[in-house]
Structures are given as structure tokens and as C-alpha cells.
């Protein structure tokens, strides 16, 4: 099996020759400063140039870090296209939002619609096309920021969270608008040649919202997003990453229409397996350990997640940019050796 066949089989619960080892990109950052220095392709340049974005994504595979390509390298493209001010970061920091666009959910009509033919949305889909043209059997993961993370980056999140309760009607209209924009971007990524879409919604966790609002806002709009992406291809494989503790929202998470669930380091595979049954689980090598521990420790952690029945090995969260490459490579080495 090549990497692409292996990942796609694993995502649909089909037989694989061994577990795949990936890191999606987007919020689940897989770019480290050491890699930028080795390739000479730097952030923030790689956020705004399709060739650099594609080459840096490809180098993750070429340096034996993970068995996939993934773009973009941040969570700010959707909101930038809708009008938010972005600081493009540095070779250490990811781009981040510095200026909100609106003050209330009721003002959502002032937001720009996302144009897939301009800005960094186009850079991303171009990068996907470039990677696709390699036809080298490496799966391409396109990344989307989840609806609540996008919405709460367009306005002050404290006001946003309050208005989810106080202005429900407007909040839902706002969420629908936001989700439609993300769908546009997602569909464009699929058409450009992405094999898988990963959605991360770190601002819409059960810990923040509680089960009731998690269901009312997170589940509803992530599912709307998934349905929208699958208008292009009805079986399209989708990964959802869930941040933080999950115990208050297991039954709600099960309603998500994703193929695979990626989760944080503090959640044990045993616990999640108990609640999620035969769902495809992905994770969860501590990104803190990847940054600070040594190869031997990473090897043990990787063996441990495989022994506990993980379906896809990946980091538990985005990589810190100062993580040593040796530590990252140790995951894939272990996965291969364990075969």
C-alpha cells in the first residue's frame, strides 16, 4: 500500500497493512523551524506563496516526518477573507487575528463573503493543485477552521459566547453565514485535489460551551460543514479534531458525521474507545513531549498508542515550532518498525 491508499483505507475502516502516521496541518501544525531552516522555505513567506506552501508541505513528507501533505499552515485564512486583520507571524509564530470585524452577531451582514479566487484561499487551493500534480501516492490533507473558531475570530469571543444565548436567532443566522463561507473554501480544496479534509474547532469545545450549546452550535454547524463538503463527493473522508477534555460531550460528539476523530493528549484512548465504539480514532502523541522529550520517550509513547488500538497515529495537537526534527521522525520510525 502507498501512503495515500493506506490513509484512505484506514479512514473508512478498511483493512490496512499497518497504521498510517500523519499530521493534518492547519491548527494541527506540522511545520517546525528546523524544517524551515533545512529547506530554506520560511514562514511567513510560505503562508502567502502557493509554490512555497506546496514545497514546505512536501518537505514534511520528504524529511520522514509524516506520511501526508497538509495545507494551509494556520487557522486565519477564512477570517482574513471575511475581513479580519491578521498578523502574519514569524518563523516561530503562526499567523493570528489582531483585528475583529464586527461587534455583535447581529452585524454579520457587514462581513465579506469568502472569495475562493482571491487571497490566501487561492494560495491554498493552488498549493493543493501543485501537490496533486505530483501524483506520488502521498495523501493531501486540506484543512478548515471550524465554524465556532471562525465566528469567534470575527468578533470579541467573550461577546460572541454570551450572544450565543442572548441573541439566539441572530447567532444562528451568523453561524449559518460563516459555515457557508467555510463550505466554499472546503469545496474548493476538494476540487483542487485534496484527498481528505480535516476540521479543527478549538474555540467550540465542550469545556467552553457545555453539552447543550455544544450540540446546538458546534455539532450543528460542523455537520452542516461536512454535508456541504460532501456535496462535491458524497463519501469524502473527513477528520474532526476535538480539543481538550471530551467527557461532558461524548454523546454529542458521536453525532458528528466525520469519518475519524482526532483528540488531545489528556484523553486516554481506552476512555474514548469505550464511548466511541468502533469509530476511527486518531492521535494522540503529546505535542509537549514531542517538543521536550527524547526519541526514546517518543518511541515508547508511539508504541503505546498503537498497542491501545489507535487507528491513525498523529500528534495530539499542533507541533511547537521549536520541536526537534529527530523527535518527530521518531514517531514514523516507530510506526514502521512496529509493522
Amino acid at each position, binding site marked *: 500500500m502507498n501512503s495515500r491508499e493506506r490513509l484512505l483505507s484506514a479512514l473508512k475502516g478498511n483493512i490496512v497493512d499497518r497504521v498510517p502516521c500523519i499530521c493534518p496541518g492547519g491548527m494541527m501544525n506540522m511545520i517546525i523551524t528546523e524544517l524551515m531552516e533545512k529547506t530554506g522555505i520560511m514562514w511567513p513567506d510560505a503562508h502567502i506563496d502557493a509554490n512555497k506552501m506546496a514545497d514546505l508541505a512536501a518537505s514534511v513528507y520528504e524529511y520522514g516526518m509524516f506520511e501526508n501533505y497538509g495545507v494551509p499552515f494556520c487557522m486565519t485564512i477564512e477570517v482574513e477573507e471575511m475581513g479580519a486583520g491578521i498578523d502574519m507571524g514569524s518563523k516561530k509564530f503562526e499567523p493570528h487575528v489582531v483585528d475583529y470585524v464586527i461587534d455583535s452577531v447581529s452585524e454579520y451582514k457587514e462581513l465579506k463573503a469568502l472569495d475562493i479566487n482571491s487571497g490566501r484561499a487561492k494560495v491554498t487551493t493552488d498549493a493543493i493543485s501543485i501537490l496533486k500534480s505530483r501524483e506520488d501516492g502521498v495523501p493531501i490533507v486540506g484543512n478548515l477552521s471550524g465554524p465556532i473558531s471562525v465566528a469567534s475570530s470575527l468578533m470579541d469571543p*467573550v461577546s460572541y459566547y454570551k450572544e450565543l*444565548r442572548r441573541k439566539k436567532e441572530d447567532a444562528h443566522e451568523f453561524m449559518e453565514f460563516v459555515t457557508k463561507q467555510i463550505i466554499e473554501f472546503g469545496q474548493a480544496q476538494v476540487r483542487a485535489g485534496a484527498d481528505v479534509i480535516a476540521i479543527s474547532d478549538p474555540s467550540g469545545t465542550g469545556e*467552553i460551551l457545555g453539552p447543550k450549546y455544544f450540540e446546538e452550535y458546534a455539532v450543528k454547524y460542523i455537520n452542516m460543514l461536512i454535508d456541504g463538503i460532501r456535496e462535491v463527493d458524497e463519501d469524502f473522508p473527513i477528520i474532526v479534531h476535538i480539543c481538550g477534555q471530551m467527557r461532558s460531550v461524548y454523546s454529542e460528539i458521536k453525532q458528528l458525521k466525520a469519518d475519524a476523530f482526532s483528540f488531545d493528549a489528556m484523553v486516554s484512548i481506552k476512555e474514548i474507545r469505550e464511548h466511541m465504539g468502533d469509530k476511527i480514532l486518531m492521535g494522540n502523541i503529546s505535542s509537549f513531549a514531542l517538543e521536550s522529550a527524547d526519541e526514546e520517550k517518543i518511541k515508547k509513547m508511539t508504541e503505546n498508542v498503537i498497542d491501545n488500538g489507535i487507528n491513525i497515529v498523529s500528534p495530539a495537537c499542533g507541533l511547537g515550532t521549536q520541536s526537534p526534527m529527530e523527535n518527530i521522525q521518531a514517531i514514523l520510525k516507530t510506526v514502521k518498525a512496529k509493522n
Partner: protein
Amino acid sequence: MARSKEELLKLLSDCVFEMEDEEVISVAQEYLDAGYDPLEGITEGLVDGMNRAGVMYEEEEYFITDLLICSDAMYNGLDILKPHLPQKSLDGEKTYKCVIGVVEGDTHDIGKNLVKIMLETAGFEMYDLGRDVPLRNFIDKAKEVDADLICLSTLMTTTMPGMKKVVEMLKEENMYGDTKVIIGGGPVSQTYCDKIGANGYSPNAVEAVKLAKLVVGMGIPA
């Protein structure tokens, strides 16, 4: 018939606990008009309600969005009662000062805002530097106000090293030990805290209050 002081204190507490951010205003006004002690109205009424909400949060009955709305009710009540506090009513008691912010490179401030609210509720004097804060600013502000505590937050793995840097700068300035540092945020852990030599880690905003009091040696609040 006018309601008793106890009844009104209970109502103030309930308004905060039950997120009644409008009703709390009229109750606070009624409490004042009856001539009751505004400080007690704050500590035994509003703050009590916020603390009850904090307990529910620890029991996973309340979530972050609930606490935010409770805090709105608390602040609405404070706006009524605070102007009537006698000047220097806290004379003779040490004021614990705390500088708080989200470290450089990160703009996610929901957790920071909540910790700020809870520490304010517990009686800390808060200096909020906001989000995406250049690391040097934490040191400068702490020096300027003679802070007892610095609280650092980040939700991104990529910006965590900033926390380490702040601890190092405190050491360079010979402030380490006098000004304590506590850290929190999604990717942060006790292990990381120990590694960088911070004085404590808290997984959530309610724990952060206990931790903050512990590291600065703050007694039982008034």
C-alpha cells in the same frame, strides 16, 4: 414589606448564580436604598454568587459560557454598589497585585479573561495587559506596580516558549521568587510548569484562584 438584609444578600447571590444580569441591578439598588453595607453586599452577595458558580463549574454543571454570563451579572451589581463603598475600607490589608495577559504570538484570550474575572472576584488587584503581549511588557508592568503575581496564558503550542522566557527574564531582573508566575491554557501542563520553573499551573479558572492565593500566601479573603 421591605425585604430583610439576609433576603437581599441571598437574592444578590442568586442573581449572579442564576445569570440574572438585569434583575441584579434593581436588587442591588433596593439593598442600597435600605441602607445596608455595600461591602457586605459585594462579599456576601455578589461574590458569593460567583463563587457558587465556580463550584458548579468544577462539578461540570456550569461551563465557561455560563461563568461569563454570571460575571456580567456580578459586574452589573458591582457598578451599583462600588461607588458607595467607604473610602479606604480596606485600609491596613495588603492588596495583592496581579499582572495578567496572553503571551506574544497568541490572541486567544477567553481563558485569560475568565481567570481575570475570578481573581478579581477573589480580591486581587488586576492589571490586564490583553493578548499578544510582548514578553518584556510583563516584566515592566510587574516592576511598575510591584506585582505579587504574573499570570500567563496561551492556547497555542507554538507560543508556549514565551512563558519560559518570562520566567528567565524574572530571574535576570532578580524578581524571581518575589513575583510569582502561574501559567495556564490548553497545551500547558504541570510538567511544562515544572520544567520552566513557573510557580504553578492551573487547568482552569477556578483552580487558578486557589493556586494564586496559595503561591502569594493570601489569607482568607474578606
